[in-house]
């Protein structure tokens, strides 16, 4: 294949990765930014979103789009509810101490993973894409659904941005992030804000998962790789920075797509890890993050 189309394909693949990754990393970044909690169980919320998507879509018959839309609405809500409960029952009781919450979320990771294995089983199951159109270009064909994933992801990012910067809820979140004690003094229910943010973060991971299940399949071990990539994105972009997360996700997604296509997937992972190391050494707060106060 000639260089031009080859590069186009690599870019498209990279953008799909970036779209899903930015949603997922945004959830991780929000949770850390507001709560200062490193959520190791984030990948399992993603997996749970995918597994629930399969379950919801298999409940209804008819056109595959019906099942998919049902999953897209319900799956993130259920995952968010589970995260909300987990936050209230576990994290809030630990007073959000960094070490304790890391251990607690590792525990959460194993609990969710093993519950999925027990009740969902070890199989990989597909969710039917809402439409199966194939765009045929002169050099190769491409799935129209994959392109729509990019579009939908951009919409979700915009919605999150509006939520954070233009609504009262966002204002309360930002206030809590800026100074927890002052926020509390002004009557902001910090505990509930934390629970809400944790639920929102998990919900975003679930949205990413619902978008990916028609491309990949729901499997109980699928959470690990995206979790590592999300950490890479969040560290490069700067924890708690929405803009940084998006930029870093596009950077990592594209480099993963292009480098792994022209060279090898292993090299792409090595480079991503190298960038993380460089960022940690020379700009520990991330490309767009504010230095810790």
């Amino acid at each position, binding site marked *: *294949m000639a260089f031009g189309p*080859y590069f186009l*394909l*690599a870019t498209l*693949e990279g953008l799909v*990765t970036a779209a899903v990754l930015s949603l997922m990393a945004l959830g991780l970044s929000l949770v850390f930014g507001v709560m200062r909690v490193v959520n190791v169980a984030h990948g399992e919320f993603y997996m749970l979103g995918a597994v629930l998507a399969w379950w919801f879509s298999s409940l209804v018959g008819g056109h*595959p789009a019906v099942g998919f839309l049902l999953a897209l609405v319900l799956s993130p809500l259920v995952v968010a509810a589970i995260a909300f409960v987990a936050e209230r029952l576990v994290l809030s009781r630990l007073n959000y101490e960094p070490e304790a919450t890391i251990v607690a979320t590792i525990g959460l990771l194993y609990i969710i993973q093993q519950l999925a*294995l027990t009740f969902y*089983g*070890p*199989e*990989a199951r*597909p969710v*039917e*894409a809402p439409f*199966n159109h*194939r765009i*045929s270009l002169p050099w*190769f*064909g*491409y*799935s129209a659904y994959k392109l729509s994933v990019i579009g939908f992801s951009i919409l979700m990012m915009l919605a999150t941005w509006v939520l954070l910067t233009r609504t009262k809820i966002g204002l309360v979140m930002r206030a809590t992030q800026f100074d927890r004690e002052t926020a509390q003094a002004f009557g902001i229910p910090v505990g509930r804000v934390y629970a809400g943010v944790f639920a929102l973060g998990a919900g975003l991971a679930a949205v990413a998962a619902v978008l990916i299940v028609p*491309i*990949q*399949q729901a*499997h109980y071990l*699928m959470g690990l*790789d995206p979790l590592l990539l999300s950490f890479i994105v969040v560290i490069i972009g700067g924890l708690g920075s929405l803009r940084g997360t998006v930029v870093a996700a596009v950077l990592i997604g594209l480099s993963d*797509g292009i480098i*792994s*296509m022209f060279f090898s*997937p*292993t090299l792409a992972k090595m480079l991503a890890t190298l960038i993380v190391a460089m960022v940690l050494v020379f700009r520990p707060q991330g490309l767009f993050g504010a230095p810790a106060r």
Partner: protein
Amino acid sequence: MSENRKSLISSTSGLSRRTALKGLGAAASLVAAPGFVRYGQAQSSAPIRIGFQCHRTGIGAAYGRWYERVTTAAVKRINDAGGINGRPLEIVIEDDGTDPKRGAEVVEKFANQHKVDLVYGTLFSHVVVGSAPAAGELKIPYYVVSEGYHVASGKLNRYCVQPGITDVKAQVRSVAPWIASNLGKKVTLVYPDYAFGHDHRDFFEPAIKAQGGEVVAKVPIPPTESSFTRYFPQIPSDTDVIYHVMVGPAVLTFVKEMGEFFGSGGPQLFGFIDSLEAVDIASPGLGFLEGSHFWEGMPRYAQPDQPDYVTAYREAVGIDDNGASAKDAKDISTAAHMFGCWETLNVIKAAMEACDYKGVDDRAAMIEATEAMTDMEAGPDHPQGKKLFNGKIHQVFGEQNISQVAEGKLKVVHRTSIEDGAYEPEADYTTMSF
């Protein structure tokens, strides 16, 4: 038992008539218990215990589920017919997580804790390679159903046998002439980048060269990969045939993305059914497979001319005419591989009967009895077809099916002979010590 012992000990310090009588009574009832008497008096009627190393979880889970069902069905058939040497067969299952390290631990657990007579049933080649040394050290027979060339290569040990399924080397040698004369001579290989895929890579190239063909490109894909589009540009445009074989939970994604990439106008496709095992061919997005060809160890779909013993086998293992579970049409079987479990258990039965297997002391005799086997006739014990066992390399050879996708089903269009896949043995296990 422990309660019984406790009461005897306490009786030495302060013996009362009541405790002494209790102890005596307990001991007497233990001896009189039906199970105790049977095993105590007649060793020969105790069950023969086989440790089944099963891929219940991990990337081999779909295969593991069906291997388990076929094993259950085969054991039921053997037990209904009177067991082995008059003893019933009992299966002890341990999950290896499709993981080589865990596989070796499972073999040790079978030998030391469960104290089974032999270990059986492993499929994924990296698990076989990882577990085989443990079987050799513990001197426990290890009957695998794996396809890999590792048994036949002579690199394992005398306790490792593969008597129920043909290895990859023989499979690719038998399909290569058909590919060269029917599909094309310029072939690109797409395969998983580990032991099993390397067998395909290493043996297909010489096989197609012998037919005047060539391998124009090789595309290895990491077995944990979940996205495949990025690999397809490596396939040269002058390729006549894409030879694909993929494993793991992402096989459906692999085939779907191949369809998205090439549409129906791409090169000819020849796949090992592994790329679609446990996946419904009628899945959305797989329409482009119509007309393409697959290797099948045993046909997934019921064929119009199949013998009665195949029909009986399919009924026993619980698959319908489409190769799906009779109970759930969406639960597609791994029909092309799982027959190996059925046949291996029948070989184990034949070997145990030939050496008059009594217990773990006869393990070496059992291996020797297996090595002495040669021809296996097609029939209820070998529903996939007739087989030829080579005792030197512990490997069986059989006929292969080449099937074409027609109207969303696989129809066998060619059946290779045992000679097509035969090759010179490169090792001799019989000269190794036990």
